[in-house]
C-alpha cells in the first residue's frame, strides 16, 4: 500500500494541475497569441480567394499553362444574379450530422429575356483548400508499397457543383478554365517538382476517391430554374466537414458563356465545446495534452476504484 502512495499522489497532482491551468486559460480570454492566430487565419483566407493568386501557378490538368486573370464585366452585364442563402453560417456542434444549404435567387434584367439561347445556372460551393499527396502503390519484391506520388499544393476539402443541365453542354471549356468551375479545375496547383511522367491518373484518382467519399460532388440538373428568372439549388454539406471559410459561386450562363457571377461566403465554424477543445489543442497544446492525460488517468483510476467497491459491496 505504502509503495504506490507516491504514484497516486503524483497522479492526483497532475490532474489538479491540469484542471487549474485549464480554468486559468478559460478565464484569461483571448490572448495576444490567439488574436494573432485569428488575424493570420483571416489573411490566409483572403489570400486563398481564387482570383488573387499569382498568375504563374501551374494548373491542372495542364501544368505548364499560366493562369488567365479574368476581367469581370460587372457593369456591362445585361442580366445579373440576385441571390440569397438559407444560411451564411454553419455551426459544427457535437451532434453535427451534415447540413443542407438552400441557395436561391433571381435574375435581374432591364431588357426582355434574350431569345437566342436558354439561360443556365451553375452553383458551386467550395471548402477551404489543403495540400495533399496522391500516392500510387506498386508491387516491389512481392509487397505493395507507395512508389510514386504527386503532390498537390491546394485542393479544396469540399467541392460541389450543381447545374441546370449537363455540364459539358451548358459550359464552354474556355469559360470553365477561366472560372475553374468543373471539379478537375478546382485543384489549384502541383507542389514541388512533378516527379511522374503522367500526372493525369493521379489527379483522376484523387477526384474518384473524393467523389466516393462524398467530398466532391457533381449534381447535374439539380438546380431548378423557373421562367428563366427564379432558381434554387440545394447543396448538401457532408457530416465530416472541415472548419473554414466556404465560398459559394453562382454563374449565369448563356450559350456556354458566363454572363454573370455572384459570390457569397459561408462561414463554417465549430461552436461550443468543439470550438473550445479545438482552440485549446492548437493554442495551448501542452495544457491540452495534460488535460487529455488527466482524463485518461482519472477514468482509469475511477474505474479501478469503482470495480473494487463493487466487488466488496
Amino acid at each position, binding site marked *: 500500500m505504502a509503495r504506490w502512495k507516491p504514484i497516486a499522489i503524483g497522479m492526483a497532482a497532475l490532474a489538479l494541475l491540469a484542471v487549474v491551468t485549464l480554468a486559468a486559460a478559460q478565464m484569461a480570454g483571448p490572448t495576444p497569441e490567439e488574436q494573432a492566430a485569428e488575424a493570420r487565419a483571416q489573411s490566409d483566407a483572403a489570400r486563398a480567394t481564387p482570383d488573387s493568386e499569382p498568375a504563374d501557378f501551374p494548373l491542372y490538368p495542364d501544368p505548364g499553362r499560366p493562369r488567365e486573370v479574368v476581367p469581370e464585366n460587372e457593369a456591362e452585364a445585361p442580366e445579373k444574379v440576385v441571390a440569397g442563402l438559407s444560411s451564411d453560417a454553419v455551426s459544427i456542434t457535437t451532434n453535427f450530422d451534415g447540413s443542407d444549404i438552400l441557395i436561391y435567387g433571381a435574375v435581374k434584367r432591364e431588357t426582355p429575356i434574350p431569345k437566342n439561347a436558354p439561360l443556365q445556372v451553375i452553383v458551386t460551393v467550395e471548402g477551404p483548400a489543403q495540400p495533399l499527396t496522391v500516392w500510387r502503390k506498386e508491387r516491389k519484391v512481392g509487397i505493395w508499397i507507395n512508389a510514386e506520388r504527386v503532390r498537390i499544393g491546394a485542393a479544396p476539402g469540399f467541392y460541389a457543383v450543381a447545374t441546370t443541365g449537363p455540364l459539358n453542354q451548358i459550359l464552354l471549356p474556355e469559360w470553365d478554365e477561366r472560372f475553374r468551375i468543373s471539379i478537375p479545375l478546382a485543384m489549384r496547383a502541383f507542389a514541388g517538382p512533378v516527379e511522374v511522367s503522367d500526372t493525369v491518373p493521379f489527379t483522376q484518382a484523387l477526384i474518384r476517391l473524393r467523389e466516393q467519399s462524398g467530398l466532391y460532388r457533381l449534381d447535374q440538373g439539380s438546380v431548378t430554374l423557373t421562367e428563366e428568372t427564379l432558381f434554387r439549388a440545394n447543396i448538401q454539406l457532408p457530416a465530416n466537414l472541415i472548419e473554414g471559410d466556404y465560398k459559394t459561386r453562382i454563374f449565369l450562363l448563356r450559350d456556354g458563356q458566363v454572363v454573370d457571377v455572384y459570390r457569397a461566403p459561408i462561414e463554417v465554424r465549430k461552436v461550443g465545446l468543439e470550438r473550445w477543445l479545438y482552440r485549446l489543442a492548437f493554442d495551448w497544446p*501542452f495544457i491540452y*495534452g495534460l488535460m487529455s492525460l488527466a482524463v485518461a488517468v482519472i477514468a482509469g483510476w475511477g474505474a479501478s476504484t469503482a470495480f473494487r467497491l463493487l466487488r466488496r459491496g
Partner: protein
Amino acid sequence: MPIYLPIAEVVVNPFTLVALGGIVGLMSGLFGVGGGFLITPLLFFIGIPPPIAVATGANQVVASSVSGVLAHVKRKTVDFRMGLVLLVGGLVGSWLGVMVFNILQRIGQVDLAVQLCYVVFLGLIGLMMLQESLRALRRSRQVSAPRRRLHEHMWVHRWPLKMKFRSSGLYISVIPPLLVGLAVGVLAAIMGVGGGFIMVPAMIYLLGMPTKVVIGTSLFQITFVTAFTTLMHAVSYNTVDVMLALLLILGGVVGAQIGTTLGAKLRAEQLRILLALLVLAVCGKLALDLFLTPDDLYMIATGVR
C-alpha cells in the same frame, strides 16, 4: 446518434468507439498489453486519419493501463524497481523513435515501415510465444513434470551493475532491462503502441522474470511511456482528439477491469497461448494487406504539416 470529433474532424458512431475500447481494454487487463497494436489499426478502419489514430490511441492506452496497473498494485504483482529501470530505457527509446519517425516521414515511407515493423515483430513474437506456451502446456500435463529451475544462469547474468529486484526474485545487471526498455521505446514511438506485446515476452524470456509480476510491471512501464508519447504528439502535431479518447476510454477501463479479474482465474499457459494466437492473427491480416493487390492503387494523404 453520430457525433463530431473536434480534432479529427470526422463524424463517428460513439457506440462503436465504446465497444472498440471495451474489447481493447479486455485485452489489456488480460494480457498486460496496452492494446495499442489493436486500437491503432482498428481506428484506421473506421476512417480516423492515421496521425490522429496513433496519438489518440496512445492516450487511450494510458487510461486502460492505469486501470490495469492499479489492479495489479493491489495484488502486489508489480516490480516497481524493474518498472523504473525499464521506464528510463523506454523514455530514451521513445525519444529516439520519434526522430526515426521524422526521418521516415521525410522520405515518405512511414506507412510501409510501420506495417513491416508490425508484421515482423508480431510474427516473431507470436511464433515464439506459441511455441513456448505449447511446450509449457505439454510439460504441465505430464505427471512427473521436471520442475523448472528457479534461477537459471544465462549470459545476461554475468554483466556488471548488478541490482536486486526483490519482487521478481532477480539479481541481475541493470543493462539488459535498460536495453529492453530502450528497444521497446523505439518501437513504441514508431508503431504508435505501448509495446507490451514486445515487452511481456522480453521480460519472460530475456530477463527471466516470473510470469506473475510480468504483466503488472509491463503495465506500469506502458502507463508512463504512453503518457509521454501522448504529450509529445499533442505538443508537436496537435493530433490528440480528447473526445475520441474519452469514448474509447469509457469502454476501455471497464474492459480492463473485467480482463484483470478474468486473468486472475485463467492459467498463465493458457493466457499465453491466447495472446500468441491473437498476435499472429493481427500479423497475418497485416501481412495479407502487404501481399494482396489492394482495391485501389491510389491513396490520398492529407495533413502534411
